[in-house]
């Protein structure tokens, strides 16, 4: 089947099985490797992207279900102000260890800060608990979200 999806503002036509999850279309068809595979079961959040600005687990979303919705990935999240603040805070606080989960963390954090510019610890727990960090960089992720929130207010 032929599908046209809009990724990071660019329409792409792909001829693919409609059940193929967006994750694999992004990674293996469109060669956008920033979005990661961790569990394939909505358990880890490594595959988080934005669908019309809302965080979704791309391993669970078949391409046939995307329709006209706009997909944003880690590769383009820096084009938004909030995304820039988040990336800068991540660099500044030296958040990652292995780094594998961090694309997903940043996508979830950016969606949170877009919705709630000054999140509480509770907000952070709610928005971020679907994203596993096996290296357990949670202390710094939390601090970086707060740092990015401050930058947003400045």
């Amino acid at each position, binding site marked *: 089947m032929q599908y046209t999806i809009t990724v990071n503002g660019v329409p792409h036509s792909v001829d693919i099985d409609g059940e193929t999850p967006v994750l694999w279309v992004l990674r293996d068809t469109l060669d956008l490797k920033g979005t990661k595979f961790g569990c394939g079961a909505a358990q880890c959040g490594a595959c988080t992207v934005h669908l019309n600005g809302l965080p979704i687990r791309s391993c669970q979303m078949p391409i046939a279900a995307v329709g006209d919705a706009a997909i944003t990935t880690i590769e383009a999240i820096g084009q938004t102000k909030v995304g820039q603040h988040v*990336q800068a805070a991540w660099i500044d606080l030296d958040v*990652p260890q292995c780094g594998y989960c961090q694309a997903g963390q940043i996508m979830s954090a950016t969606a949170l800060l877009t919705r709630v510019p000054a999140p509480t610890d509770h907000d952070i727990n709610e928005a971020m608990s679907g994203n596993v960090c096996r290296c357990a960089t949670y202390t710094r992720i939390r601090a970086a979200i707060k740092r990015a929130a401050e930058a947003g207010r400045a």
Partner: protein
Amino acid sequence: MLNRRNFLRASLAVGGGMLLSARIPLGAYAATLGKASPDAVSLNAYVRIAPDGKITITAKNPECGQGIKIMLPMLIAEELDVAWADVQIEQADLDPRYPAQIAGGSQATPVNWLPLRQVGAAGRQMLIAAAAAEWNAPATDCTTSPGQVLHAASGRSLSYGELATKAATLPVPNLKTVPLKDPKTFNIIGKPTRNIEVPRIVTGQPMFGIDVSVPGMLYAVFQKCDVHGGKLIGSNVAAIRTLPGVRAAFEVKGGKDLHGLLDGVAVVADSWWQANRARQQLEITWDEGDIAGQSSSDFAATANRMAAGNPEIILRRDGDVNAGFGKATHVLEAAYHYPFLSHIDLEPQNCTASFADGKVEIWAPTQNPAPGSKLVAATLGIRESAIKVHMVRAGGGFGRRLSNDYMVEAAWISKVAGAPVKLLWTREDDMRHDFYRPAGYHFFKGGLDADGNLVALSDHFVTFSLDGAVANSADMGPAEYPARMIENLEFGASLIPLRAPTGPMRAPRSNGLGFAFQSFLDELAHAAGKDPVAFALNILGKPRLLPDPPGPRAGPGFDTGRMAGVIKLVAEKSGWGKEKLPSGTGMGLAYYFSHLGYFAEVVKATVSGAGAITVDKVWVAGDIGSQIINPLNAENQAQGAALDGIGAALGQAVLIDGGKVVQGNFDTVLPLRMRQAPPVEVHFLVTDHPPTGLGEPALPPALPALANAIFAATGKRIRSLPLKDHDLSTTA
């Protein structure tokens, strides 16, 4: 010029400038490491100084999140005296010139600390000599400031870039005698230094094993028998070949080695999704063999039965433990258990391989490439010189990637398929084909005298064997704490035959032993009516070095003073015993020495009436010697290690049923999540000892500190993990 004594070589770099390369036998460093045959190990370093002053340092070790890629170059850059901003770091491939390319055992710091600084210092001395010759001034009148040589008397200066080509022709200094900087003058070592890879990570650049792409590459999955080592009898593989996108599907006949190529069916397709889709149609008949009878519940029953008898092996005997129990006024017995664990690296195992014309090129996220290359050579029947292994960043290691099973699978599949392939495991593959942290059962008995002193201790450790020998990482040494400090002590072991593969996991052995011993010691402290801190300091006694018993793991010994030092520090920082805690909240202490690092941790936890655990905070105090090389990374590693322990204690166990691992994904093996993660406060006690690593030693105390906090909060003693299996509710 080559100095044969210390194997330091300086040569002209391609395009001008100086290339320094060093190959250093590590005999001199044996003492700090306690290695049996240190001469077998040598260390290499490559440094290039370009005419424009840019410094390129090759990072020889694999990177899987431990921060090694910048830490080792920091050592060279410091003594070379260059600005960190001028340093570029290149990742080396697997190269026979680098014999110790491994990420494991927290060894990078102790092994590299002196030699890499000496390499930098030698380079600096040659640059000074080049400037001195230029100016016709004595070298002793010249100094350096980052990136340049200065002659204070005349106010002249030359940049390293200008001097490098000349320096390359000068005699090289003796590494052993080259003067090193006074640590007080360090500009790079000890300064918080950011990981240079983070800008690439936060923008989603392809950099991990799973991101590798080579021209003409196909995607592969590999179905093995979920009963470890099961043999393939037959399959419907012919039908799989007709499924959409499938380019090849074939049976693989493997060997017996669980670390090598095993029986299975490979499916190769145009996309990974198609390969994995097709795989779901596979019907395979296996010969599961005699191991299909093994189950975790049977292990527990066997352990109890063994505990009723004498240990099969005596590991250590001091004094007379039975006489000790006889004289004790209080004797306590308790049985402890910790489960099998999976490493759950977030990036599932994968590898890309391209086999053509008898040669194979491999891109592997591995912690340990050299044995992988040997394994591929032996399995494919090719020479090692026909194999090129690129080390690719790994999304977590934790010891799992010390094995190279995924590497040999990718190479084999590429060869049979006749195309480059990327093999990617599913999460279920990863969890069901791991080298598990072995479970263990400890049957303790402790005797206290009238003053509450621990006068006798015994442990009957029921652990596992594979093919008659103690299973990988399932052993315990004769120096296990508190051996050497207790008058009457006996450690014995009995072995349950196991067929599931086991292997090292972050802080191997210590990650389980620490839980069992430190929990039982806490139990003894309470039975003695003593504060756990005072009880611990009493066992440690006066500061002294206790030498290790001879044996393969003999190290530099155990320093009771260093252990006491971190216990006191963590007590002070956590406000131990100072605060009246609300009911349902408690603090627990645990301390442990592993991988040359001394760590004490305090956990504060609250248990609700309904039995829900909140970990409120963790305090970590560590003594890893005289210098924290990169404080920014050290804090991250120590926090991560402590939280790793908390996560495992709360929600992780791998159970075996009918020879298969029951769990397959993160819905049953629960990784720590943001809402469970407490703040972790890290303190280092700087002592006058050589710096050592911290990727591992901060982990073991976290689990028992949490279990002990739960006891303090609820009065319920936790004698098995994970905590999710315990009912801690107090309300009906």
